């Protein structure tokens, strides 16, 4: 059964909000003008940040990858403590379920949008050709993000959230 993307966005709305929050936060940190912002809406896309274009790769990288970092870290911080009582000790506490939903919601919205991924890939290619150290170091991440976006049809981005929120702690807390 294929669940429409907008339904997933509604079910994981905290992740959408955190994603746009992170975008805007990195725009502010890098002095990029934010022209318009929507943290959540019932539509496609569920949220967006319209910002000015930048020619600086570091800025483009941080603005695009910022949500990936923030959402992933928050997902891990929220899911890991909630995982132990539920899965290790079998204690079915409502708080654990709430935290896991929150954490996985945030993790499922970690990946940059297709537009951001394409933009970042375009910038990275240019920056790598000019031998920028950050671009060279981050290129594998950029390529991975680009590939995941290509595979987003198969919901690989959502699987990533489930993977780091539930899969990773299950590997650690056996």
């Amino acid at each position, binding site marked *: 059964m294929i669940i429409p993307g907008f339904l997933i966005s509604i079910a994981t709305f*905290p992740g959408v*909000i*955190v994603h746009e*929050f992170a975008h*805007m936060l990195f*725009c*502010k940190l890098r*002095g*990029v*003008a*934010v*022209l318009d*912002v929507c*943290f959540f809406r019932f539509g496609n896309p569920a949220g967006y940040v319209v910002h*000015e*274009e930048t020619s600086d790769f570091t800025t483009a990288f941080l603005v695009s990858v910022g949500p990936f970092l923030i959402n992933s870290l*928050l997902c891990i*911080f*929220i899911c890991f*403590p*909630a995982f*132990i*009582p539920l899965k*290790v*000790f*079998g*204690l079915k506490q409502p*708080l*654990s379920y709430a*935290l896991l939903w929150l954490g996985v919601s945030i993790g499922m919205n970690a990946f940059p949008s297709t537009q951001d991924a394409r933009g970042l890939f375009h910038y990275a290619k240019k920056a790598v050709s000019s031998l920028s150290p950050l671009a060279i170091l981050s290129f594998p991440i950029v390529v991975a993000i680009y590939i995941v976006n290509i595979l987003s049809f198969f919901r690989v981005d959502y699987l990533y959230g489930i993977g780091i929120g539930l899969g990773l702690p299950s590997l650690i*807390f056996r």
Partner: protein
Amino acid sequence: MIKVKCTQCGRTLPVKETSKTDDRILCADCYEKLTSTQETVASEFRYLADPTVCGRCGFDNGSSPLPSLANLPMCQRSTDYLRNRPFPSWIKISFAGLIIFVVLAAVWNMRFFLAWRDTKVAFQLMGQDMGQAADRMRGARSRVPESSDLQTLSSFFDGIVYLQQDRPKEALASFRECKHKLPDTFGVDILILRASAGVAFDAKDYDGFVVVAKEMSVKKPDDHSSFAMLASAYACKYAVTSDMAFCEQAMAALERARTMSGGDPSFREYEQRILHRLNTREILSPKEFHRRFPNGWQQEKE
């Protein structure tokens, strides 16, 4: 503010109130009239931007064009605002709430993490220091008292410590709490038999001791300690009945255990106790045996 003339009606208007289509500058009224008669015009329509008026706040810079930001004329105030756009209050409150919630949840769940760590350490210590391992497991249980799994594991660890301390009654009570609650790999059934044998020995119920030892030898036929226990039980029976049949059964079981032991030093000590029992028909507890023969017992010396 730049003003232009509508090419259709000739009115002079601010440039941002006009549109350019087919190279003609049109006011809104003329555009409306044209789109109702010429369908093609609509697709080519676009608004004209006035480079002297701020695209965000409408600030009029007179005749001087404003700097451009994202292809829009922008005054300094708007530029500063957009470059450091404030988060809406509800976002600030929500994010602060989220962080507080996450921190509180982490603090609340810390005891589970510590209990998990104690459990891990307890299993690591199992082969080295069972006393410490049981302490760690008890610590885990006290951190998460609502976990039945931890209670079971703690009882299991306590049971092993009691067995090591030669307190079979307490060990049996602990192992019975774990029965059917742990996987077979924990060997709870075997440990229950070991503890039961100890309880029977302490109660001088040697018939019961033989029954348990026989069951043990059936369940663990590859373990030399099973046959050593059987030898011990028959030796007890011999000691209290003087029936040589029990002595022969004890010797046979002991021989089998010796063959299987492969020189295990703990077996050597156990063997001495059984041989002493068969020779003297005196049943000594392990503690008493060690007290009397701190350097071991040899048959020839008696």
